[in-house]
């Protein structure tokens, strides 16, 4: 069992309250996922000649300043950064590939949790409330956010096995369910060059989407293909730079409920997680249909 929550703001006036609105949603799903929790928040966009990386090192006292200085020296580019617990967000004036290669080569002990213009992924082992407090979720601002609370069933309880999983530039995935063909699919994707950190089935779903998108699929095409190639149970929420998408498998055993008002669109595994949202009593509340892609995107 796991919990999924997502909140997409239609009303930009609420962006300063995104974390405050979302934090109780994540915590409400603690019973579905007390092992670990995480979220991907979108906002604070960097210019197109910059890349934003979310970097993690287990040591909270890690010398991030040294990384920034080294980036500036070696690459002669502008670097801005800030630390949040054991994670740092770096905004680097370089292409994604160049910046990631530099980190991988010179700082192999650093894990890159996300890359893009907008996305920041933060996740950790522990109760959702603990994770929300650790990263000061309540005070975060942004346009949209998706989160996950994990109750591990198939693989170890580790930060690496927790969600969201990055699936490419400004893309990420959270999953509730279990895939039955993940071992075979992992082998096939490895042959195609996709790298995996864990034995986790959800990471395979993330790797699958990454691969399809790299092959030129649009997000809708990649999700359509996922319905054919992924065997098992899933409710997915996929975060994109401009919004999010929701997809349930054709059997639709794993729950999902959505709500929409003039101000927001929200998804959760259970209605309980939506009940703290303003105006929810008068919101349109419905259950997403099986094997149907729901997507919300703001115009840029």
């Amino acid at each position, binding site marked *: 069992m796991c919990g999924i929550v997502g909140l997409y703001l239609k009303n930009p006036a609420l962006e300063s309250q995104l974390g405050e609105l979302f934090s109780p949603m994540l915590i409400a799903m603690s019973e579905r996922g007390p092992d670990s929790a995480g979220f991907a928040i979108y906002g604070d966009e960097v210019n197109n000649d910059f890349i934003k990386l979310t970097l993690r090192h287990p040591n909270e006292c890690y010398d991030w300043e040294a990384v920034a200085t080294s980036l500036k020296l070696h690459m002669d580019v502008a670097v801005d950064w800030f630390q949040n617990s054991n994670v740092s967000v770096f905004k680097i004036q370089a292409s994604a590939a160049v910046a990631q290669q530099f980190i991988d080569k010179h700082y192999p002990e650093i894990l890159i949790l996300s890359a893009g213009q907008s996305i920041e992924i933060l996740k950790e082992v522990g109760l959702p409330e603990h994770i929300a407090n650790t990263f000061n979720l309540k005070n975060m601002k942004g346009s949209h956010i998706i989160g996950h609370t994990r109750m591990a069933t198939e693989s170890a309880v580790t930060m690496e096995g927790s969600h969201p999983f990055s699936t490419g530039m400004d893309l990420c995935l959270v999953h509730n369910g279990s895939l039955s063909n993940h071992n075979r699919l992992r082998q096939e994707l490895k042959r195609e060059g996709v790298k995996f950190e864990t034995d986790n089935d959800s990471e395979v779903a993330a790797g699958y989407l990454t691969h399809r998108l790299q092959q030129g699929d649009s997000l809708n095409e990649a999700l359509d293909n996922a319905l054919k190639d992924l065997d098992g149970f899933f409710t997915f929420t996929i975060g994109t730079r401009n919004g999010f998408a929701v997809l349930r498998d054709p059997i639709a055993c794993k*729950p999902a409920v959505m709500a929409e008002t003039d101000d927001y669109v929200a998804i959760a595994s259970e*209605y*309980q997680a939506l*009940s703290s949202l303003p105006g929810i*009593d008068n919101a349109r*509340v419905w259950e997403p249909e*099986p094997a149907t892609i729901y997507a919300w995107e703001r115009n840029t």
Partner: protein
Amino acid sequence: MKIINLEIQAVRDLNQALHDQSIKCNEREWEVLCPKGQHNIACGLDQSLTIDIKGHAGYYCAGMNKKAHITVHGNVGQGVAENMMSGTVRVKGDASQAAGATAHGGLLVVEGNAGARCGISMKGVDIVVKGNVGHMSCFMGQAGSLVVCGDAGDALGDSLYETHIYVKGEVKSLGADCIKKEMRDEHISELTELLNRAGVDENPTEFKRYGSARQLYNFKVDNASAY
């Protein structure tokens, strides 16, 4: 009338207070405020009570109900009125999957839509849905009736036993061993009574009847070579 606010009191306390009524009934009318999608509200009742739940309820609302009349003024999560024995459960909004699962008796009315597997393995309950039902509804239904005033999803009545199914709208597909059947006078009477009990204003002659072809009841010797 007794009012219980679930922002102040726990669901466990509510259910205990309702269960106590089966021993000595001193309050017939109850109102439950601020359910906020919590699970297991008004489960396992065994007394002729009237309960109004003012808002959306979570999973297994009114499960295992006996005798009580429960109205949810909102939506419900999965498994509403699961294993109900008698009484009435009315959902003013939508119901998630497995509404009325395995229920033996009583009446479940969903005024909105019901999700997948509505009436799965039902054993005698009557279910009336004013809107649509999702896929695999009435799967392995054994007894009772399912009335759908809207459309039915894929694989309606798969592996059906003796549940009577009436659908007014479109059926996306029928499940294994489920077939369309003739609507005879006794079925019009049965459906008329079900619609009246549910308080639903529909014309019974506009419905079609579906039932079991009874081809899966027994092992067929013709299939022996497959083993």
